[in-house]
């Protein structure tokens, strides 16, 4: 996703002379081409994320379209007040880009895992929040953000789901993509972990259970309509995110459905539950350890369908 994002920026930078790319001293190797071609449009501000975010606000208020870039929590939690006060309150045209969403940087340790970022970023007024599931969504989201005026957060993942884009499909910001059709249960995922939802849907199809799989690439603004339709048209909804269940995708979906009065037959959240990702291992290993993988989704679905069947009978 990172390389796709940088690739699109490199391709479109000449059309956006107002674009300024700020990195907090990260991106060794991957930024070389961009830096070499557009030296006036990028700036390594050093390991200083608070300054980077305040600078970004000042540059944006002077007419620049600014991207801030770093790993994990560094471009978000480290400088949250600058994002809130300097960027969001002024509606500054700043895009905050995190590479290493969720537990992408698995073996590096919990400091580099972004597992509360979606909840925190989506609570900020005026902030759009996007977490693509695959390379196509990444490229399209990047194109969108280059033309969007205002604060936004782009969470990029090391993993990527297999391509599900249809021929001629147009990316619609704020609109959930239905990447698999079904009416027994809805699996709503955000980010690369959508791959696990697709695997679970394949396995459930073998058992005769057809899943509707949703790619919720835009968490804010959230597509209430598609979610309400899923609540009405399928047996229940399970949210899947490489993130804490508190306030993230699952929380957002629950809020949306409750307010719309569209109560699903059942609802469950797959995500981190009041825990740090302190175990060491690859992203896939950690998904298994923390019950976010395909097997965990299958357990949740069968358990919920069992409960639902019990109530019905």
């Amino acid at each position, binding site marked *: 996703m990172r390389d796709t994002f940088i690739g699109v920026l490199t391709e479109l930078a000449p059309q956006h002379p107002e674009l300024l790319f700020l990195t907090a001293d990260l991106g060794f190797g991957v930024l070389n081409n961009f830096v070499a071609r557009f030296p006036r449009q990028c700036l390594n501000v050093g390991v200083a994320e*608070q*300054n980077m975010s*305040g*600078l970004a606000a*000042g540059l*944006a208020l002077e007419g620049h379209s600014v991207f801030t870039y770093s790993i994990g929590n560094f471009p978000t939690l480290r400088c949250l*007040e600058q994002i809130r*006060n300097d960027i969001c309150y*002024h509606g500054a045209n700043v895009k905050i880009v995190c590479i290493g969403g969720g537990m992408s940087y698995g073996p590096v340790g919990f400091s580099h895992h972004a597992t509360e970022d979606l909840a925190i970023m989506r609570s900020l007024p005026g902030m759009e929040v996007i977490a693509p599931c695959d390379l196509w969504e990444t490229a399209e989201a990047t194109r969108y953000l280059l033309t969007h005026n205002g604060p936004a957060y782009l969470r990029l993942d090391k993993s990527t789901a297999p391509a599900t884009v249809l021929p001629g499909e147009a990316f619609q910001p704020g609109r959930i993509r239905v990447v698999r059709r079904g009416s027994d249960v809805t699996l709503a995922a955000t980010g690369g972990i959508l791959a696990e939802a697709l695997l679970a849907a394949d396995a459930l199809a073998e058992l005769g259970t057809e899943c509707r799989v949703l790619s919720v690439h835009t968490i804010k603004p959230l597509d209430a309509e598609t979610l309400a339709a899923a609540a009405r048209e399928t047996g229940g909804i399970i949210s899947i995110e490489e993130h804490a269940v508190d306030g993230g995708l699952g929380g957002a979906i629950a809020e949306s459905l409750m307010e719309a009065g569209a109560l699903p037959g059942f609802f469950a959240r797959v995500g981190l539950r009041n825990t740090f990702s302190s175990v060491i291992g690859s992203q896939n290993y950690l998904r298994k350890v923390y019950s976010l993988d395909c097997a965990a989704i299958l357990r949740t679905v069968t358990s919920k369908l069992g409960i639902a069947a019990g109530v019905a009978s």
Partner: protein
Amino acid sequence: MNVHAIGDTQSLARRIRIHALRMTCEGGGAHIGAIFSCADILAVLYGDTLNVDPAEPENPARDRFVLSKGHAGGGLYAVLAERGFFSVEKLLTHYQDGTDLSGHVSHKLPGIEVSTGALGHGLSIVAGMAYAGKLRGAGHRVFCLLSDGECDEGSTWEAALFAAHHGLTNLVAIVDYNRIQGIAPVSEVLELEPFVDKWTAFGWAVREVDGHDHEALRAAFEHLPFAAGKPSCLIAHTTKGKGVSFMENTVLWHYRVPRGAEFDAAFAELEGKP
């Protein structure tokens, strides 16, 4: 500029203090001591130095000013009203329900670039503005007024490093060095000395000035940047609460609201001055 239209800067500083006294008394706002300590700096900047025009508050060629010590918002509102950015009557809505004049400075008002209030934010924002100005070869300057207390914030020094590294000669940081922060003297909380050496070591061209001496302030601002290739830092030695004898150099008047006899006494002192 425009000094002749608005009277001399001494008179302007006195009016800033009187407005701020009324605003904090009637609204119940705090920070009168912090406003008084920078009233002369604001008067010289807005009465003499800054190229700003109330008729065109967003003119791209204007000098930018950011009050990083946002708690002195009353002082900035007062000087902007005196310069005609909005009406003087509006000042008395300060702190009232539904006003645009929050205690900490708000960009809802014409002439105010950014809202501040959380300390340690301003210098990064102006560094961004100054960098943008350099990129497009613009001739305007970017000024930032900081408190000494916010030099406790690491983010202030992140910005200081950046501004020097990029040779932001169009950037001017003024530190209102009254040596009293929120609840105690700077020397008891976190010593900043040797303060000039710190800014110098960070790559800034530094000058010191009596922050209440208008001629000295004016002279300093006439020689910007202080050195080739460097951002400029003016350490303004000031007295917290300056202008009202019983408020001067006390921790008390960072937060205390002047009311009743205290208001009357302060008002009399300010009115009695030339």
